[in-house]
């Protein structure tokens, strides 16, 4: 079986497991309760319930240190079964009586096996028939939409899937840390590296623990599942908010196909990163916010008998909002920042309603409860002595600095340059400069370019009105240029100005249409448009905060991801709102024809993008392991007995194979045996040792190979990189030196133990050696290999 096919099977497993637990199980429990809701909204709600339940179950079990496969299954299955029986009013007792009767008849030979089995078969057949009819009754999806949805799926599979399935290892450096945190959960160590949102890690851990999926495979493949969820989250949001049936697909098309977005805005979707996972819950939170205002308004203004309690539609919306809001906090703070902006926008958009006590009380209680539930695990663990995780502290520091306007200059994340020549990717060399502003605003810089803004103090004479206007004009032009440059660097690779203008036009359109709708009595729809306009506006301000000397809450490179996510939404909603205004008094037929116009617009857009070479291309992703290394690791895990092997490599098998074996760093080994006079002996316990050697070494966290072949005496004779260089020991020429030395070390071992050292896997770029040793009498690996 090829690794790719294996990964495809694993992907199917991940998809089935994840959606089975997060959609199917809540669906079985809630389908009768929510049968009146639109299909897509129901699916969304099930999804939110499923994710929320899993995260909280894991948190609770982890806090009590009783989290393992069995407790997780019990904590998930028993409530599910109980609720499924209760909500669906399943006649369990009647079934039991039937079973008892059938058993008695069978034992008394008054009923034959054949009759019994045929009876069961008929019942199963009926169930299938019901399911078939139920599927046909799925409302709201036409054949055309089905085709469009399939196109979206195919494109996502092609654009993201091919890369995800052909890169067996990780594509982002953060994943290694997340692997470590998920492994911490496996050992009942919640927040193992410090307090940090671990909602996504709970999901990964759940899939690993309950379904037996390896963590590194989940982390490699979940990015694809994630992007599907992000895309469908956007689709459901737009489909539910827009009045035009097909405009949402135009928005999806821009989000997925458009090549004028910077690759920075979509390259992270290839990996299972918590920030991007949290984005799934952004638009649902906003949507349920809209829902709440609409249903509450309807409840308060109509004479209908609205049920109370859990069946109250407004309560249902608040639940949806609370879960989404809570999950953004549980998964990644950045999503909460962005959602908070939209919440503020919502408060302004629905100001009249928001300030009324019925609404205000509900919203405040909901937000408090939601936040409270999300905070509880962190507060408990903090009280138990767990410190804050490093990046939270760093984040708070950055915010504090930006708010406090300090003039300090700090460098974060500086990498030490190694002794030998280094070839590094400029993206890795991130430095944060504090630029000094003579006006004393003390702006915080952003990564990328470092600009020093010089302002010449004005000549102390009384300015005229004309000079004031001129100065303002100049400043405005300068700001616009800076904004354009910032957008060009972070968001739009081409047509940054045009896109910026389009954005502004969209925001203005949304505001205007919102006003018109409010005037026409549709407060809720108007409020929705205003929320989107204001929210995106705030997001834009956060992106360009530095230009205006505002506090930078989030790095521009991160903000741009959210921005690029919202821009198609806003464009589409602007078009839709305009159409809604223009076609308000038109017939349904006219409105439906404009639906299909959206498809035409989409096709045209695709054609234009293609002609201008603006179809999105796959970005360059960093290498952290070679495919061959992951192939060998997978085979070793599947075929070797646990805890009987050690891998010696320059990769991250430490965390990837933590449940099954051990890892030894190449650079540590080489340093230990560099001076045999001080190294008495070096033994690595275990029956087998696997040594991963790259003939064609990759540069860690870069996207290129360093050379075509490095296993030469020239590199083997160079000095061993120091362990203190940390990751730099595995970059550039240092990596070549490590590989060459290791290769010659293995050759020396092979000469001493020819029947115990052999090739496990080899191709043109990679070789893996297997060393079999007697566990009772281990080999002394500190041998003279000629290049110590």
């Amino acid at each position, binding site marked *: 079986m090829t690794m790719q096919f294996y990964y495809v099977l694993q992907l199917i497993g991940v998809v089935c497991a994840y959606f089975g637990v997060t959609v199917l199980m809540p669906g079985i429990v809630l389908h009768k309760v929510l049968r009146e809701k639109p299909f897509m909204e129901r699916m969304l709600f099930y999804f939110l319930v499923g994710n929320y339940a899993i995260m909280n179950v894991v948190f609770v079990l982890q806090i009590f240190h009783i989290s393992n496969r069995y407790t997780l299954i019990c904590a998930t299955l028993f409530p599910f079964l109980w609720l499924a029986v209760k909500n669906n009013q399943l006649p369990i007792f009647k079934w039991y009586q039937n079973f008892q009767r059938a058993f008695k008849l069978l034992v008394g030979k008054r009923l034959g096996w054949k009759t019994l089995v045929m009876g069961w078969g008929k019942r199963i057949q009926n169930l299938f028939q019901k399911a078939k009819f139920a599927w046909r009754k799925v409302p709201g999806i036409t054949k055309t939409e089905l085709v469009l949805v399939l196109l979206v799926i195919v494109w996502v599979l092609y654009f993201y899937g091919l890369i995800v399935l052909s890169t067996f290892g990780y594509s982002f450096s953060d994943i290694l840390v997340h692997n470590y945190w998920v492994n911490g959960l496996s050992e009942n160590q919640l927040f193992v590296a410090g307090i940090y949102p671990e909602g996504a890690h709970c999901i990964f851990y759940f899939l690993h623990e309950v379904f037996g999926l390896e963590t590194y495979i989940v982390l490699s493949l979940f990015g694809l599942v994630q992007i599907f969820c992000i895309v469908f989250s956007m689709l459901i949001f737009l489909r539910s908010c827009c009045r035009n049936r097909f405009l949402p697909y135009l928005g999806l098309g821009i989000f997925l196909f458009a090549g004028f977005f910077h690759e920075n805005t979509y390259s992270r979707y290839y990996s299972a990163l918590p920030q991007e996972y949290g984005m799934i819950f952004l638009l649902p939170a906003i949507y349920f916010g809209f829902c709440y205002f609409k249903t509450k308004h309807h409840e308060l203004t109509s004479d209908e008998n609205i049920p109370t309690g859990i069946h109250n539609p407004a309560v249902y919306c608040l639940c949806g909002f609370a879960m989404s809001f809570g999950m953004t906090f549980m998964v990644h703070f950045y999503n909460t920042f962005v959602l908070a902006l939209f919440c503020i926008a919502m408060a302004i958009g629905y100001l009249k309603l928001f300030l009324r006590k019925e609404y205000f009380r509900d919203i405040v209680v909901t937000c408090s409860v939601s936040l409270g539930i999300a905070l509880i695990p962190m507060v408990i663990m903090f009280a138990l002595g767990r410190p804050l995780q490093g990046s939270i502290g760093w984040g708070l520091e950055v915010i504090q600095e930006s708010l406090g306007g300090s003039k300090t200059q700090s460098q974060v994340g500086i990498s030490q340059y190694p002794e030998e020549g280094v070839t590094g990717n400029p993206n890795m060399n991130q430095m944060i400069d504090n630029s000094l502003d003579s006006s004393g605003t003390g702006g915080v810089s952003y990564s990328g370019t470092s600009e020093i803004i010089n302002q010449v103090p004005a000549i102390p004479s009384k300015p005229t009105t004309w000079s004031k206007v001129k100065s303002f004009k100049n400043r405005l032009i300068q700001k616009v240029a800076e904004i354009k440059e910032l957008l060009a660097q972070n968001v739009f690779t081409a047509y940054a100005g045009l896109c910026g203008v389009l954005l502004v036009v969209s925001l203005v359109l949304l505001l205007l249409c919102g006003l018109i709708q409010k005037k026409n009595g549709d407060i809720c729809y108007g409020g929705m448009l205003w929320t989107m306009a204001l929210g995106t506006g705030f997001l834009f301000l956060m992106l360009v905060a530095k230009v205006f000397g505002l506090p930078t809450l989030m790095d521009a490179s991160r903000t741009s991801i959210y921005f690029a996510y919202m821009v198609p939404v806003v464009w589409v909603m602007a078009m839709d709102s305009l159409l809604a205004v223009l076609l308000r008094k038109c017939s349904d037929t006219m409105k439906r024809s404009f639906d299909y116009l959206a498809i035409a617009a989409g096709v045209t857009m695709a054609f234009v993008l293609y002609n201008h070479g603006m179809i999105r291309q796959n970005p360059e992703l960093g290498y952290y392991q070679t495919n061959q290394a992951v192939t060998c690791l997978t085979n070793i895990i599947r075929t070797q007995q646990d805890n009987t092997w050690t891998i010696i490599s320059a990769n991250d098998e430490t965390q990837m194979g933590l449940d099954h074996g051990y890892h030894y760093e190449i650079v540590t080994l080489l340093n230990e045996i560099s001076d045999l006079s001080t190294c008495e002996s070096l033994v690595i316990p275990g029956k087998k040792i696997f040594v991963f050697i790259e003939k064609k070494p990759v540069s860690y966290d870069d996207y290129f190979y360093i050379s075509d072949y490095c296993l030469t005496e020239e590199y083997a004779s160079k000095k061993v990189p120091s362990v203190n260089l940390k990751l730099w020991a595995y970059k550039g020429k240092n990596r070549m030196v490590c590989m060459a030395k290791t290769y010659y070390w293995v050759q020396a071992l092979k000469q*001493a133990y020819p029947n115990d050292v052999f090739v496990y896997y080899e191709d043109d770029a990679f070789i893996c050696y297997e060393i079999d040793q007697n566990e009772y009498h281990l080999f*002394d690996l500190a041998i003279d290999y000629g290049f110590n």
Partner: protein
Amino acid sequence: MISRRNFVVMTIMMLALFVLFQFTHIGQEKKELYARNLFSEESEPQSQIPEAQLKSTWGKMDREKWVFVGNQDSKQAKTLQNWCDYEKKKYIGCKTMEDLNSIENVCFLVVDPTMIQTNDHVEQIKKFTKKGASVLFYEIPDLTTLRYNKGFRNLLGIEDIVEESCTLEGMKLFSGFFLGGEAVYQPQTPEEEALMDLERNVPWFSLSKGTKVHMVGLLPEDTVENEKLPPLIWRNQQGVGFVYSINGDYFTEIIGLGILSAVEADANPVSLYPVINAQNISVVDFPGCADENDELLNEYYSRGQNAITRDILMPSLISFLRRGDFKLTAFMTPQMNYYDEIEPEGNTAKFIQQQAYQNSIELGQSYALHFGIKLPAKMEQDKAFYEEYFDTYEFAALYYNKPMMMKNQIQKGNFENVDTLVGPMDLSGKIVYFLTNKVTKQTVLSDGANYTYKSDLEMRSIQTAMGYSNMLFDMGEVFWPKEEEDRWENLADTLFSNAQTYLAPFSAFQKTTVSESDRRVRDYLNITYAGEKTEDAVRFETMGNVEDVWFVLRVHNQEIAEITGGEYTLVEKGVYLLRVTDQRTSVKLRPCDENQKLTYK
């Protein structure tokens, strides 16, 4: 009430059943099928092809040269000679190190460490290892020599002498050296102390890097790391070849054979050698036919010797046979004490033959001498008995316990009608050989009742070298017990558990009677073979009768991909038993470079 018709039908059915059940037995009685030795066949006489005539269409067959440096009359030299005869290698003897210089293309050197006097000798050895030869020092040199000769220490892979003598609690033999897997020889209880008969006081060395240890001594727990335990058999890499060292008196006539096969397999990626493939159990002085020692036997068993044989011993042995799928050769004796005026009775003869026939037991004649009887006298006394009661049974195997007496009889031309003689080790030091042109000798290698650690090591050695074993069950102790412990219940426990435990790791080798084993021994001694070995293939041509010819192929971590001209079974990891079905046999191994054991590629 039943009708007449029913009555008749039932009677006919009963008659039919009676006939069916009894017919086979009656038929057997009539034809006297049991009165023949099923295992006796015409045997090949000695016929080894002279070396000068060795030719193969695959090229000239030069036998591998194994050189012994030291006293040519020593038992170690004889052991190597015997081994070379069995393995079809060329033995070359050198009395001094200087004689070595004239020999080219040496495959292996077995060196008396006292021959290494100077650094020049060390360098001389190193020259051979650089050319690819390996060296075996069958004992440790004098410690003073070692202490002052750093070059010699480096050659052996000894970094330092930790202690000049230490007392071991036990020994551990690691798997992969001898066949049969790992073995631990460490008494846990006072009773087990009696089993320890291996050398316990040995020097303690710390080895240098690049050595691999095959056997270590055990010290009291938790005092020393595993890697620092006193090494007993180890290997040091030197140049292209290896230098093996034995610390202790292990290079004996029997264990030495196994060590030589083991080091040859260890030093080469592929090793091929012929084996006998026969596991024998020789039950001696059973059955007896005279009611001797009646008083004592009646006290222990409430019956006489013949009744004990019929009611206790035979069923017990048959049960053991069936449980372990063993084959027995029972060397019967009409009586043991010829001076007690008790004569053997022939009424048990038929029973004995029937039981032997039904349970695939071969009967032989025991000439174990007891109570001072001489061999000629016993022969004469027993002859009449055999002629009267076993006239049609062809005895193909004999057992004896006095080698010198038997040798005299053979020289006189007696025992020409038998095919094989079974007895203890004699002065030749050989396990199996042609006693005469037509008669082979098979040595009893272990005593089932007195199985010690050394016995086990010897068993493993011979299984490794020859795929052969011959375990003795001496039943004389049952009929003439000296003490209470000699009762059959106690002896049976020991015999059966020893046989099942110590032969179990070698279950890939076939169980045979002595006559079946004899035919294989003849082919083993007569055949010769040659061919070529590469890392991924072996092909060889066998000259001689290939009907019952087996080889062991040791390939470490490879597997057989394909075989032509033969069949194979797996003995243990990296070890295959090949049966040759054609003169030419070709074995393809999975090539090392392509040995990608990946499930997911």
